[in-house]
């Protein structure tokens, strides 16, 4: 799968019509993934083995590294999202990117390959490799095709993620040697490492390495200073990928690696982590409200929403995990929608400053309508996907700590303010600078926004499709976690499991 993707990529480099090739490649990938979903989704629900696909080749035997890819429900959902947003980002840049097409699409495809690799890798080194592959093409996309200040943004982004990535590398190595010294077998294989977990302060420090990488990429509260620049200065395809997908790789990493590998250490930092998450929700919302630049506003709103992920992951129960899963998908879709709208506006007006905009509804009622959908999604209107995810997350957090859950819930209220401000500033208030006469959507734009809207409403009404797919994978993880901990937990995992099953049935 991932390998096939890579083959596609190299072919697309020097072609004269890279757009079509990129688009077709991504559609093909998307179809493959949806096919797997349709065929296997139902079966794997009940099966004990939650892994849908499993590929394992020897890579660097001297270090015990394998080319090990595996797919479970979580990966499946994330892959579908990856390719879906990939298709959209190619479509969005159809008109706005005119220079060096081949190289642009080459970068985009590599980027997506790295991201899908991250969702599939089951070898820690391979995971790290894919994690880092994302960086270089993202940097190029940002610097070459970005807005005026993109060099600085690219630089900052690269450095932040690089140093945190290296911290993770150190932790991976630490894990490797820990396992090796305990069992005599030096390996980077995720499952083998899972069978022999470190404890005490070793676990804590190793976890910190992983956290460094994931919290920076997410980004979490103190590490977010690269975010507004990176999100706002990228071309839109870049913004979509970085906000819609890359930040999800961090969330995925938290669920896949931090929680199962370091269960006790993760428990020990749960309260501060949730607190950070809750504060990020509020602080992000506040910053978002203060922005004039549309893209920066969206960037901070994304930062705010990522707080929910942190809250959910560290609440340690099924409900919250499901919420996180939903949040990854829903936020991916809604943030992509908002960035795409900002791109369409930028294409038409050449500015992102909201003070110069106004009264767009008159000319572009269609765009206004779509914007309304995504703004509502982002503020968590029931019936749209984000509501489901935020509700699940908060319900999960409630079980863990009531006070913090309340704090996080306040974020929902604040998000209303900045979301509505987008709508009000751009579409309704009377134009302050000049009267704009702008064309409404064309067919391509209809296609992009229409498909996103359908997806977001569908997930809002029938979240079961995502929850069910990821369920088996979570069950499996909970099992592993419980096996690895001999002493009884303070949370009644079983009760919650039953409860969630009832809820989702």
């Amino acid at each position, binding site marked *: 799968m991932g390998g096939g993707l890579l083959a596609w990529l190299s072919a697309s480099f020097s072609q004269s019509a890279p757009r079509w090739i990129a688009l077709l490649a991504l559609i093909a990938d998307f179809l493959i993934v949806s096919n797997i979903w349709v065929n296997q989704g139902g079966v794997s629900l009940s099966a004990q083995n939650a892994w849908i696909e499993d590929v394992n080749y020897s890579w660097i035997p001297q270090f015990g590294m394998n080319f090990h890819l595996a797919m479970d429900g979580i990966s499946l959902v994330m892959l579908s999202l990856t390719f879906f947003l990939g298709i959209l980002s190619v479509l969005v840049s159809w008109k706005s990117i005119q220079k060096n097409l081949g190289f642009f699409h080459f970068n985009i495809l590599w980027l997506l390959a790295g991201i899908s690799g991250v969702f599939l890798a089951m070898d820690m080194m391979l995971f790290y490799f894919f994690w880092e592959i994302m960086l270089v093409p993202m*940097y190029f996309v940002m610097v070459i095709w970005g807005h005026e200040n993109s060099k600085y943004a690219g630089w900052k982004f690269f*450095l932040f993620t690089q*140093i945190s990535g290296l911290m993770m590398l150190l932790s991976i190595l630490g894990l490797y040697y820990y396992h090796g010294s305990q069992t005599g077998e030096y390996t980077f294989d995720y499952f083998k490492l899972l069978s022999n977990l470190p404890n005490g302060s070793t676990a804590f420090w190793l976890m910190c390495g992983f956290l460094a990488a994931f919290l920076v990429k997410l980004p979490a509260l103190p590490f977010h200073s690269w975010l507004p620049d990176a999100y706002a200065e990228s071309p839109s395809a870049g913004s979509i990928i970085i906000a819609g997908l890359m930040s999800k790789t961090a969330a995925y990493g938290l669920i896949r690696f931090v929680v199962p590998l370091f269960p006790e250490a993760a428990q020990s930092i749960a309260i501060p982590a949730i607190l950070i998450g809750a504060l990020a929700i509020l602080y992000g919302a506040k910053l978002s409200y203060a922005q004039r630049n549309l893209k920066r506003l969206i960037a901070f709103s994304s930062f705010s929403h990522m707080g929910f992920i942190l809250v959910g992951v560290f609440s340690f129960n099924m409900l919250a995990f499901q919420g996180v899963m939903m949040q990854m998908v829903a936020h991916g879709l809604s943030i992509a929608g908002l960035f795409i709208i900002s791109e369409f506006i930028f294409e038409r007006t050449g500015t992102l400053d909201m003070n110069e905009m106004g009264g767009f509804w008159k000319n572009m009622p269609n765009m206004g309508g779509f914007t309304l959908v995504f703004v509502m999604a982002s503020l968590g209107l029931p019936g749209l996907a984000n509501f489901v995810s935020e509700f699940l997350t908060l319900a999960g957090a409630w079980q863990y700590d009531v006070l913090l859950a309340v704090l996080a819930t306040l974020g929902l209220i604040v998000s209303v303010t900045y979301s509505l401000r987008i709508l009000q500033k751009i579409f309704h208030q009377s134009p302050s600078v000049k009267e704009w006469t702008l064309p409404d959507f064309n067919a391509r734009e209809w296609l992009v926004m229409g498909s996103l809207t359908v997806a977001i409403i569908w997930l809002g009404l029938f979240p079961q499709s995502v929850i069910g797919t990821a369920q088996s994978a979570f069950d499996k993880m909970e099992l592993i976690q419980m096996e690895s901990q001999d002493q009884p937990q303070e949370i009644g995992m079983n009760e919650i499991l039953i409860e969630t099953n009832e809820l989702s049935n």
Partner: protein
Amino acid sequence: MVTLQDIHFLMPEIVMAVGAVIVMLAIAVKRDYTLSYGLTLATFLAAFGILVLNPTETRPVTELLLADPLGKFLSGLIIASAFIITIFSYPYFRIQKEVKEEYFILLILATLGAVLMTISNHFISFVISLEILSVSVFALIGYLKKLEISIEASIKYLILAAVATGFILFGFSLIYLSTGSMSLAQLTQTPAEGSFSLLLLTGLGLTIVGFGFKMALVPFHFWTPDIYSAAPAPVSTFVATISKGAAFVFLLRLFYSIGGLNNDNIWVVFAVLAIASMFVGNWLGLQQKNLKRLLAYSSISHLGYLMVGFLAFSDDGIRSSAFYLTAYFASILAAFGMITYLTSEHDGEPYMIENYRGLFWSKPWLAAFFTLVLLSLAGIPFTAGFMGKFYLLSSGMSAGKIVLLLSLVVSSTIGLFYYLKVVQVMLTRSETQHEFYIGKHSILMQAVVAVLFVVILWMGVFPSAFLSMIGM
């Protein structure tokens, strides 16, 4: 006594010595630049071939030298690098208005010195090979004698190298005084665990100063940027790779055999040198506008990283250092090769970073290659540099030297700044056209660039073959 087997083992060195003489005689018969170039290439090729065919074994060869896999691997690396440097030199010196045939003699001799140093097992053989190497390098640095800056650099190197050699000799004599031996093989047995007399410690300390200079570890690094920027690009390449690598190997042999790293004081001294090199190298690199000086600081920091493998004080440490040296050689050769490649008769060397503005748009392939090289130096995955760093980290981790590892990680991120700066300059659009450069007409040089490109990627993605070569 020298046996026939020993002669077999020494054939590569003999070939090089004879090759130097042949080139000299050829010049006496007829001054022809291309001829001496061809002879030099043939010499390195023959030496490399014989080296590869020689059996890999571990045994002393006379009292002075030692045959072992590490020595063989590094000799091979050095000869191969010398071969590549020769190819870079040919078009570079062809456009210079100098008497240039003798350049190749010096190059062969310097390489000979370096190779001998990697297989030395005795103070005497080390000092002799060091002198062969250094004296040739003085002349190489100042080879373009019409350039004042070149001469200045040469004299600077001469004086500092002489002082460093003095330190090493004095250190050696103190070691000899306290142990009564000059052979590394015997030094292994001499000091009992952990018991180092003050005299021996002083001796080792003085040698550390000398080696610190040879390898340009901070605070003995001041000569590097001046000499790199003033010397002709191929010579800078030589100084950055071969002469540093060879000195490192002997340092490794000396301190591993005498067990010096068991002593806490010595270990701490080296750790401080290593950490200082990483940080100072990367820190000073930030401000550079001159690409050659930038690479000089980059090489200072790389030697600092290399010390992590050295300080792991294990077999894994040796192997990771060897692997890292290979990755470092390939990347630095490629980086300086790039400067040489774009040298033009009209404008000289493109040593300023500004000269590369817009390269990405006028010469996409070259720029892609250079980007890869810079990323390799920065240690981004899928390049040789990353695998090398990974292996160093892994050997350091197994030895439990967390402080070193953290400083490696942090300082290499600082380093990223300036590598990215060069990449960004290449990405910026400009009207500058890169039209006349020597690489355009040299098919061999283009081939070498392509080979280095493949090697850097290959080592980054499938290092298995290289790892088995260094004995894993």
